[in-house]
């Protein structure tokens, strides 16, 4: 009797494993605010098309690794991947080419990073999340201290000092955890001071303007909460939300939280503006999230159908209502959405002028090295000039190594 039961159980188990053939998509998304909209869209598409949808949510730190392994090995585990735009040059070789070019309603900075080579090549992805850095500041406090909107980084420093001392809060908050975090918060400063990371195959991140920019960052650090050299985006946003810091560079994905009474103590008090400039006009860093189909996907037709569908104006509008920063001009300019999201004009302006990170397949490794030394400088473990010299040295090595060697 027991054997019969066991056999039945086994049979049922095997049947449930094989299942009936049907459409199915496996989608890898970033766990967190950026992935929410795509997740919801995927469920909706699955229901409408009677397709089985599996969403694999992975934290930012591991998403790249998982996707990269899947791509280079062509395992076909994922049918659609969501990727951060700086990963694109590295992944491009293993992405399936789009069956038709995207229309011109998309913001051009977002479209350019979907082509390989940059700006000119074939389209291999569609832009889904229109992220570009914005400057967040406490409008109420700026008015209280009779400060004009911050146009330059010098304005920011003056305001940080005044507000910080007057209010007994932190005048500024930034994230200087190594890797993506500190590099993202340093780039706008670097660009505003007229510096850059690399030029062709030469590291230039220790040029005089770069050193100046880093010195300035340390100046700002004096008004930042202690331990900011270990901060990530969540800590920066927590300080803004709690009203314990007055200004920061941040991403549009956090705007909704700032005006959400359940999460924020500063509802309606924060203004979102374009990045301050200094010697050069201010530009934010582009951090668009793209959707693409791996070349190894076994459901490529369905996968493409889904990503085109999800980036159509109608769907993107729905995603926008879920808090997803769009990549289409028409959505940014739609009056009913502007009425709902007061920051849309600033977001569009910042997105259109945003600068992407250097388009190199080695960006992850470069960012890792760069981030380590920037973080060390912010932590006081290294002098700014020495840190940037060391960073330039190691970035140069990475560039030379990969110039001579081809990757397996």
């Amino acid at each position: 009797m027991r054997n019969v039961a066991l056999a039945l159980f086994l049979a049922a188990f095997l049947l449930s494993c094989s299942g009936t053939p049907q459409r199915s998509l496996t989608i890898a998304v970033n766990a967190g605010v950026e992935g929410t909209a795509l997740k919801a869209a995927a469920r909706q598409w699955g229901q409408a098309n009677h397709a089985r949808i599996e969403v694999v949510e992975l934290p930012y730190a591991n998403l790249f690794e998982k996707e990269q392994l899947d791509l280079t090995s062509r395992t076909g585990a994922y049918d659609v991947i969501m990727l951060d735009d700086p990963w694109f040059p590295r992944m491009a070789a293993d992405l399936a080419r789009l069956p038709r070019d995207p229309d011109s309603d998309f913001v051009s900075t977002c479209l350019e990073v979907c082509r390989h080579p940059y700006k000119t090549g074939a389209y291999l992805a569609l832009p889904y999340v229109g992220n570009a850095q914005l400057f967040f500041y406490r409008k109420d406090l700026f008015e209280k201290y009779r400060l004009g909107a911050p146009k330059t980084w010098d304005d920011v420093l003056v305001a940080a000092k005044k507000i910080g001392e007057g209010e007994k809060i932190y005048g500024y908050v930034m994230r200087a955890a190594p890797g993506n975090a500190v590099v993202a918060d340093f780039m706008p400063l670097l660009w505003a001071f007229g510096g850059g990371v690399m030029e062709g195959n030469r590291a230039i991140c220790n040029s005089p303007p770069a050193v100046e920019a880093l010195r300035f960052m340390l100046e700002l650090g004096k008004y930042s909460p202690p331990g900011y050299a270990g901060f990530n985006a969540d800590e920066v946003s927590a300080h803004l939300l709690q009203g314990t810091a007055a200004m920061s560079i941040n991403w549009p994905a956090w705007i909704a939280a700032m005006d959400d009474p359940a999460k924020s103590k500063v509802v309606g008090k924060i203004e979102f503006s374009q990045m301050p400039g200094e010697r050069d006009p201010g530009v934010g860093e582009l951090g668009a999230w793209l959707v693409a189909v791996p070349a190894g996907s076994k459901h490529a037709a369905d996968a493409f159908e889904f990503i085109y569908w999800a980036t159509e104006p109608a769907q993107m509008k729905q995603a926008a209502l879920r808090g997803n920063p769009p990549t289409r001009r028409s959505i940014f300019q739609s009056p009913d959405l502007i009425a709902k999201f007061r920051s849309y004009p600033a977001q569009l302006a910042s997105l259109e002028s945003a600068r992407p990170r250097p388009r190199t397949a080695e960006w992850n490794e470069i960012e890792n090295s760069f981030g380590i030394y920037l973080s060390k400088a912010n932590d006081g473990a290294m002098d700014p000039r020495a840190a940037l010299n060391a960073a330039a040295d190691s970035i140069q090595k990475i560039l030379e190594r990969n110039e001579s060697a081809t990757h397996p």
Partner: protein
Amino acid sequence: MNRRRIPEGFPWVLPSLLVLLALSIYPLIYSVKLAAADRGNFTRLFTDRLFLTASIQTIVLTIAALAIEFFLGLALALLVDSLARGRMFFRTALLIPMLLPPVVAAVAWRLIYNPQFGVLNGTLRWLGFHTAHLTWTSGESSALASVILVDVWEWTPFLFLLLSAGLQAIPPEPLEAARVDGAGAWRIFRDVTLPLLKPTIVLALLLRAMDLVRIFDQIFILTQGGPGTATETVSLYIYRTAFRFSNFGYAAAMSFVLLAATMLFSRGLLRAMRAR
């Protein structure tokens, strides 16, 4: 007797040998091939500052954690051994940290360490201490120590357990004899207990050292090697090189350094096991 005859036990052992050849030795050979594909992989080992940092930190972490765990474990073993009552209870309760899945232990410590919302700073603040400068795993200077603290919490029980077993296995006669000779407690410990405990100590230290040089799980969850490179270890750097920078060859080359260190320990371990 034919000396060339295959030993009778060989067929019994063969399946295991084949499996291990396929899953351990073949991968090793494969690794050699990966690393040797580009000779630059080996020369880079000597000029890579990050690898040097990671190696130094792995050594520091191993030695510090090992020393603290050993002394705490020994002290606890002696303490519990001296209790008249409740020995069984203490022995069981003290083992729990070591049994948890390392991932779960690390998650618990993330909850504890968070500078703003963590229970550690929360409790200290409540007791009246200033905690603004206590950044634990998110501070460059305190991160490695914080990671070591977690390892000490998790693995002191291991030393405690093995040393307790060693203490219990010591026959009572030499201790009695020393006592009759009028030796003090310290003399007895130094001249009788410690020498008899030595094989266990060596074994426990080697087993632990081997795990420490390859430490990965806890750091991966607690800090991912940061801030800066403050908690970067060799295992983590190999992982990053292979799976983030897609440089399998260099990762393989670095892993041989780790392998060499492990082999050193494992030879000692096998000898210690033989000696028992």
